[in-house]
């Protein structure tokens, strides 16, 4: 790392082209990826990423450049390129008095990835493999992936912000394939956290393997889901992907500032049924999407997005804030230094209501119970979404009657929010990787069990 004085010079160089704002983000990351197929380690690789991203704003125009050369000369050179893009040459000699933000570390780590041997990591994977492959004789293929990283970031900007954060993440992912007569179904479970190897004091790798296998084993014997419009009960934990995809993305400044979101201009308005309240909370200790400061050096905070159906806040980064004339909310994130940061979700979930999940099922005459959700996608401008149900069941006369497979849920985010009519008391969160313009980042989704009064279910029968 360079001295404060050196960063001050680099920032001044960018500003000398007439920029209103300049920022330097330096990242160093040690990372491990291990892949086990059918109980054998097929790929293990590790290494170190090192680079810096420099950014300038002129009005609401953003200019971004990155490089692997983090030396003073290297960064001055990139700063010079940014300067020339911004335009006119003006003499700037801003003396930056960097203020270090003070915060309590919300993601303390016991066993950092660097001090745990790869053999120990492989041993955890083996347990997960055994849990899945031993679940039933229909399980024909098990893939276990493990990854961890230890990321250090340093952020300096022309407003005197100087921040650093250390982020450690560890994740275990199990995919189990069940086969019957050449027919195949896949089950997945991938727990992770913003912590080190101590994750496995909390997560039993064998049970994680069993859970992935259970989904595949049940689905391979299931009939195809019925298609058409019907009530859908979405289970807790990863079921929250519906909210993440269909609503969360449309509450990011990225789409709101452009006016490209169905929720643009709706602050204070009712956008959801009264039983729906939701937050984005990057301050949950050791949660998968948590951080002490965001990737612009703004301290993170819990943001109440929807309160009893009324839209209260968006997720806003610095540039989005300039465009929307609103304060940043500590929501600026990026995959790594090769991406300019933007507004992103962290741990986003619907808050619990007061129904027991059993009660919600009992109150439903006919419909689909989506127990495990797969991934999905959404078009923020229209709110149209699509996502897969990995584990589904049919509800008939208030009871779960049989497993069904191959279902997808499609709809529009704003319509679905209005159609949530029962919210359970069993809030839980699940882990995913969220992809958007600033790359792929760890994000928790979550919700209690809830019911959407009607949704289009795509299926084969």
């Amino acid at each position, binding site marked *: 790392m360079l001295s404060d004085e050196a960063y001050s010079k680099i920032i001044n160089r960018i500003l000398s082209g007439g920029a209103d704002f300049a920022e330097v983000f330096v990242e160093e990351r040690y990372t491990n990826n291990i892949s086990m*197929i*059918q*109980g*054998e*380690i097929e*790929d*293990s*690789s*590790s*290494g*170190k*990423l*090192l*680079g810096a991203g420099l950014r300038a704003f002129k009005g609401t*125009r953003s*200019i*971004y*450049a990155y*490089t*692997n*050369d983090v030396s003073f000369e290297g960064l001055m050179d990139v700063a010079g*390129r940014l300067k020339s*893009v911004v335009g006119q040459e003006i003499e700037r000699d801003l003396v930056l008095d960097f203020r270090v933000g003070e915060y309590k570390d919300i993601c303390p780590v016991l066993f950092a990835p660097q001090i745990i*041997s*790869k*053999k120990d990591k492989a041993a955890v994977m083996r347990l997960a493999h055994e849990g899945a492959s031993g679940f039933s004789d229909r399980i*024909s*293929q098990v893939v276990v992936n493990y990854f961890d990283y230890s990321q250090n970031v340093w952020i300096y900007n022309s407003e005197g912000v100087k921040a650093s954060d250390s982020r450690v993440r560890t994740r275990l992912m199990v995919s189990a*394939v069940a086969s019957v007569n050449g027919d*195949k*179904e*896949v089950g997945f479970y991938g727990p992770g956290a913003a912590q080190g190897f101590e994750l496995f004091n909390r997560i039993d790798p064998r049970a994680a393997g069993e859970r992935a296998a259970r989904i595949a084993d049940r689905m391979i014997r299931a009939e195809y889901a019925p*298609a*058409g*419009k019907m009530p859908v009960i979405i289970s807790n934990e990863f079921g929250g992907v519906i909210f993440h995809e269909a609503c969360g993305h449309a509450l990011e400044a990225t789409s709101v500032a*452009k*006016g*490209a979101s*169905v929720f643009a201009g709706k602050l204070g308005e009712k956008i959801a049924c009264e039983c729906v309240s939701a937050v984005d909370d990057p301050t949950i200790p050791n949660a998968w999407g948590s951080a002490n400061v965001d990737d612009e050096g703004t301290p993170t905070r819990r943001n109440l997005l929807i309160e009893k159906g009324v839209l209260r806040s968006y997720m806003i980064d610095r540039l989005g804030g300039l465009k929307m004339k609103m304060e940043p909310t500590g929501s600026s994130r990026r995959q790594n230094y090769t991406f300019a940061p933007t507004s992103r979700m962290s741990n986003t979930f619907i808050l619990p209501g007061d129904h027991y999940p059993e009660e919600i099922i009992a109150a439903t005459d006919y419909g689909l119970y989506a127990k495990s959700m*797969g*991934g999905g*996608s959404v*078009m*923020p*401008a*229209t709110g*149209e*979404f*699509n*996502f*897969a149900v990995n584990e589904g069941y049919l509800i008939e006369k208030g009871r779960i009657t049989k497993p069904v497979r191959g*279902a*997808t849920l*499609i709809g*529009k985010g704003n319509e679905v929010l209005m159609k949530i009519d029962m919210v359970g008391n069993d809030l839980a969160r699940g882990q995913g990787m969220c992809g958007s313009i600033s790359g792929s980042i760890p994000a928790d989704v979550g919700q209690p069990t809830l019911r959407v009064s009607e949704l*289009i*279910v*795509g*299926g*084969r029968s």
Partner: protein
Amino acid sequence: MEWKKFKDTVFALAKKKGFDEAEIYYSSGSEFQLSSLRGEIDSYNDATSIGVYFRGLKSGKIGAAFAEELTDETASMLVDEAFENYSIASGNDVYFLHDGSGEYPQFEGFIGAFSAQPVVEKIERVITLERSALEYDKRIIMVPTCRLGDSRSEVFIVNTLGLDRHYSSDGGVAVVVALAGEGDSKKTGFTFKIAREPGDIDVSALGKEASKRAIDQLGAGRVKSGKYRVLFRNDMFGQLFATFTSMYSAENVQKGLSIIAGKEGTKIASELLTVYDDPLLPISPNSRPFDDEGVPTVKKTLVENGVLKTFLYDLKTAAKAGTKSTGNAIKSSYRAKPSISMINTVVQPGEKSFNTLVSELDEGIVVTELTGLHSGANPISGEFSLGASGFYVKNGSIVNPVEQFTISSSILKVYNSIVAIGSDAMPSIFRVSSPSVVVSEMDVASE
């Protein structure tokens, strides 16, 4: 540190550590990207990067590590990490490095036209792209995505068996999404173009086409659930096809993860379907003279008139199957392990224009948008259930746009139900060049 010295340092350390052989993959490149919003440059990205991937081989097992700087410290980190990774490698797979033998094709991947184009000209073009979309029709509300980008890269692979190769390539892309609105209906239209030279991108036509696509979808209605004849527009068939190309990988075949395992020489598709992998396709920025194991690439037929001709092999799977690598070991990034994939998939075009296909459809659905390809499709089982929108066709004419329906089937069912192939081949950002294709029957679910 200079590249040649770095390489020698790493190879010496690898030998000392106990690896039999060693290989370094080194890439360096630059990327430039502009986007426009409301007539102004909204973002500007300019990047240079390098990456080093080291592989050590010992008794048929590999250990790998990566880094982004060339220093003495990095050299020893790479070798130490790789050795620890090697120490946990297990299984019966035997890995090889390539000795540089074989015939390397002529390759002119680097034109340099994009890097030579002045920035002011690029700025003008991206703004024109947005304006042409915006001015197409009053109902265009805005252009949420309007981007021009270009990149260049240089790849070196060198190993202790004598392989020592490199190539350069460059190319560019334009992407535009237009948002149209009328009453309560809001629709987006998307177009893109990949090119080797800026002159190959007609920004004005591209912007108009995106807006036309959005406008055409306004007021979309629903379609009744049932079985329909489906016409996939060229880019949509390309996307669907690309989602399932992992079944051609010999790795998946050998692991029992391919639904076409054991079907070489047999009919897997309608005889209208012929598919190539063409690693030297001039239009594609993904083209290359050798794969990421250093093996020379070659054009090959995968499916000929419906008959499966070959799988795709890397060094390891080829040795296991007693055949030769097809030069299809590809890294998704410099720090990823090479794995088998298509380089440029080409679905051979037929004779009929898109309009002829529509008129011959009689009653059916034209699919012009697919969503959920990464979640609603299972590349192992071949099953898919995808969100879609498009047009309802009756008596051979487009009647109205339709939205929010799903199409479900399995890829081999699609292969076998192909009844017509268009002449409108379109190279896509998904590394597939495909014409429009008609499938005789698919499950469509909506209301």
